[in-house]
């Protein structure tokens, strides 16, 4: 290329890319809900540590869980989890190889619904188990 080359390709900056399209904003939000999942994992981990430190620590951890701020936190985290679950199964069909049933390709919406149904069933089972253990 000679110095007289008139070409001067312009590269546009990427700063703030995720604010430029509602699709990307939603992407950042649903990826952000992964932090809710991580936060709850830490909460449970703290419980395991408390258990390891003896009965008193365990009981105070339980008491902490029952406090109003904790209940509020649980509510907020639950909302985050629900949105996370919803978006997770929405993207799932894009990540799977074609599933054939009777020679027909299973539709994306069917995969999403099956995933959501599985999440619901699993949640009910865990809840039932917890209720049984608590009684």
């Amino acid at each position, binding site marked *: 290329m000679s110095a007289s080359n008139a*070409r001067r390709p312009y590269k546009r900056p990427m700063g703030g890319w995720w604010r*430029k*399209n509602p*699709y*990307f904003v939603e*992407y950042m939000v649903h*990826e952000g809900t992964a932090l809710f999942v991580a936060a709850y994992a830490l909460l449970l981990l703290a419980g395991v540590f408390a258990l390891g430190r003896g009965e008193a620590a365990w009981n105070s951890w339980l008491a902490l869980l029952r406090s109003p701020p904790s209940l509020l936190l649980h509510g907020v985290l639950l909302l985050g989890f629900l949105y996370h679950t919803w978006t997770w199964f929405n993207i799932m069909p*894009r990540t799977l190889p074609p599933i054939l049933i009777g020679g027909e390709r299973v539709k994306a919406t069917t995969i999403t619904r099956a995933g959501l149904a599985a999440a619901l069933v699993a949640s009910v089972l865990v809840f039932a188990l917890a209720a049984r253990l608590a009684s």
Partner: protein
Amino acid sequence: MKAAPRTIRIEVLRYRPEQDKEPVVQGFDVPFTDDMSVLQGLQYIKDEFDGTLSFRWSCRMAICGSCGMMINGVPKLSCSTFLRDLYPNTVRVEALAHFPIERDLVIVLDDFITKLHKIKPYIIPKEPRALSQGEYLQTPEQMAQYEQFSACINCMLCYAACPQYGLNSSFIGPAAMALVHRYNLDNRDGGRAERDPYVHSEEGVFNCTAVGYCSEVCPKDVDPANAVNINKTESAKDYFLRFLKPKGAQA
């Protein structure tokens, strides 16, 4: 009876390297009829207002893949996007995102062409075949395996939709992966081993964070995100299974 033409405002992000330090917006009031696409709006501007306006196009029927641009921030084929659907709002037209702008709406697409070459997008026979053996036969089931991925028209809208590509253009990206997948799935092809190193490399599939917008904007329902993500599984298998293979088994 023909309705009188209405007028729509088209704002074009212009870039003339010989005079503009950086791109500038220029607006035009364009009379249009119901059958006019954004591409035809641009042609009107070029014919009537400013002959220096540059943009690519060829087929005008959504098959050549030349006329992609950002229309109101969304990657679209300008020949199949109609002014009547955008009216009365102003239309903002800009060169495809994530690619360098050569001039006005024309992008530098060398990077994509290099990637296309790299993935060997053609059938690499499993074994040498003599002409006398005749043509390959393929059943409809065998064709169905890859047909969706063969619909790609190389319009690059998916790259303009991929923030990961925008942030790191060494990423192989959606359409190139869709084509890798298309040939790998073809029962006549034996080229997978030649394509695999690129797919599994640093520039390969794992740059994808499953944003999924590529598949959303694809005008041919190729679902390139699907090709990328299926190959993540393949890539992970390739990585981990090597530890299970007996020593020296790898070529």
